[in-house]
């Protein structure tokens, strides 16, 4: 074959495959949204699920997912920031740093089901917290922490060196430089990364099946006392999230409209992740503009 013909054929194949991936995404999103949107209504989003009858909603599940996400972020952000800053600014190359890097790498590549099982063993059984929101949030912390560390480290590494040197030249202490010079510059990247990781946490199911539980008690949305068992804010109640609900409905759903519920819930899940993605982009740009004088984020 002439090299020229081979070149043309190869180019055609590469372009076809690349466009095939775009088609897969468009098909996936189109399928999920078109099938699911028709089932989404205000009632579907707010009412409680039904076990055997048709017409159940996903209200508590949606609330649980969001609440769990907030709890997880409250725990992971400070811890991830601390460890990430350490890795970026303080850790000197050496055996210990290599070991920590390995720990982060292994932790982030653990399958989520292992994280869930570990949560079941340690948090649910040993610490006796039971199937609860707080167990789920802690399991998601193990899952999310390496991500946060990586995001923070990368964000700090992209800050220009001159910024730091200018700080030292002014005689600032290292901690002062980290908190008032480097952190503001790194913040937009950190926020973008955090929102994206929130999207991942939001869709996580395997780690939650064994920690947050697969049932949701009857919730009373007028009761905001965090210690009462029927209050939605009580962190010690079991909580089935939206992703777990989709899995359960698909695997063992008994309601006659189980497929529609799964379709609707999937659409809600995907829409939320899409909103997270858009918000990450918008928010990152907005904060960057607020904190620096530049118009665009590169």
């Amino acid at each position: 074959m002439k090299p020229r013909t081979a070149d043309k054929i190869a180019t055609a194949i590469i372009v076809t495959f690349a466009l095939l991936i775009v088609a897969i995404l468009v098909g996936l999103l189109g399928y999920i949204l078109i099938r699911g949107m028709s089932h989404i209504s205000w009632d579907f989003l707010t009412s409680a699920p039904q076990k055997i009858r048709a017409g159940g909603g996903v209200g508590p599940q949606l609330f649980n997912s969001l609440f769990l996400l907030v709890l997880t972020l409250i725990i992971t952000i400070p811890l991830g920031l601390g460890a990430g800053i350490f890795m970026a600014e303080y850790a000197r190359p050496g055996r210990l740093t290599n070991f920590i890097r390995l720990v982060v790498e292994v932790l982030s590549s653990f399958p989520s089901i292992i994280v869930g099982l570990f949560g079941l063993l340690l948090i649910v059984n040993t610490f006796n917290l039971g199937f609860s929101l707080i167990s789920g949030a802690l399991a998601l912390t193990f899952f999310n922490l390496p991500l946060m560390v990586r995001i923070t480290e990368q964000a700090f590494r992209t800050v220009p060196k001159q910024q730091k040197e200018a700080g030292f030249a002014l005689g600032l202490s290292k901690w002062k430089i980290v908190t008032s010079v480097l952190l503001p510059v790194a913040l937009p990247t950190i926020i973008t990364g955090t929102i994206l990781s929130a999207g991942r946490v939001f869709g996580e199911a395997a780690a939650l099946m064994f920690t947050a539980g697969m049932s949701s008690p009857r919730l009373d949305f007028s009761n905001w006392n965090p210690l009462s068992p029927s209050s939605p804010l009580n962190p010690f109640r079991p909580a089935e999230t939206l992703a777990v609900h989709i899995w359960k409905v698909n695997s063992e759903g008994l309601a006659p409209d189980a497929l529609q519920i799964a379709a609707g819930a999937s659409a809600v899940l995907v829409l939320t992740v899409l909103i997270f993605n858009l918000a990450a982009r918008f928010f990152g740009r907005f904060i960057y503009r607020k904190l620096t004088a530049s118009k665009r984020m590169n």
Partner: protein
Amino acid sequence: MRVKPKKTRFEKHHIENFIGRAYMSFCVLLLIVIIVSMVYFVASKGIANFVSGEVKVSDFLFGTKWSPEADTPSYGAFPFIAGSFLVTLLAALIASPLSICAALFMTEIVPGWGKKLLQPVIELLSGIPSVVYGFVGLSVIVPFLRNTLPGQGIGVAAGALVLSVMILPTITSVAADALASLPQNLKESSFALGATRWQTISRVILPTTFPAIMTGVVLGMARAFGEALAVQMVIGNAPFVPRSLFESASTLTSVITLGMGNTTMGSPQNNALWSMALVLMLMTFVFVLLVRMLERRNKI
């Protein structure tokens, strides 16, 4: 009179520095504690059956019969181990060519709008939760396979297809990074010699970036190996070694997902599930090791 030098040790910025350092060390220590306890807990549960003599290691790894409820129970996990490997390898075989083509498209063919088009696509694909992949697999791929090919639709083929879409973004983004970081003059000298684009790609670019692209493939396989719910929904969960691609099978993750809630803690059957979790964990270490080796090769 001599002026005593001011004590600098307890100045404000020293205290600040100390508190900051202590806090960060605590965070790092926590990471280490988490991973150590994770390995310890899962391993101690995972070897319980072997230590007590209930099951032999070789029977567990190579036994093909899984019947924990029989009168003489046997805990052979080979069908699940085989299922996990089979599905993972198939998914990697389907996804790798697609991903490498997408990466080439983004970096070599149309670097301008190709990246603008594919970057968000890759991000969105990796953002879609795994249960949603499982749901789509169950309601699109399974009926399609059932109607066009022999078998029930659920099975190894469906699992591999769902997984291959899930690992596409992982492989693509790593491969695209590798291709983009390739020194420009390598390509230019190849073009200067009169090579066509495909000759440059196949004889210069791909061989040079091979270890980095393999890193992406291994990362994708690691993800596929550990994925639980999406596979569980479409694979059929039969405890046999599959004889064809359209037969239903089980993976380690799917058996754990289904069994863990229905067995009592501490029973031999439950411990066998923990042994499977241990196998999963050891495989994660193997994958991490492979990635590290490939990265080292990439540097030279």
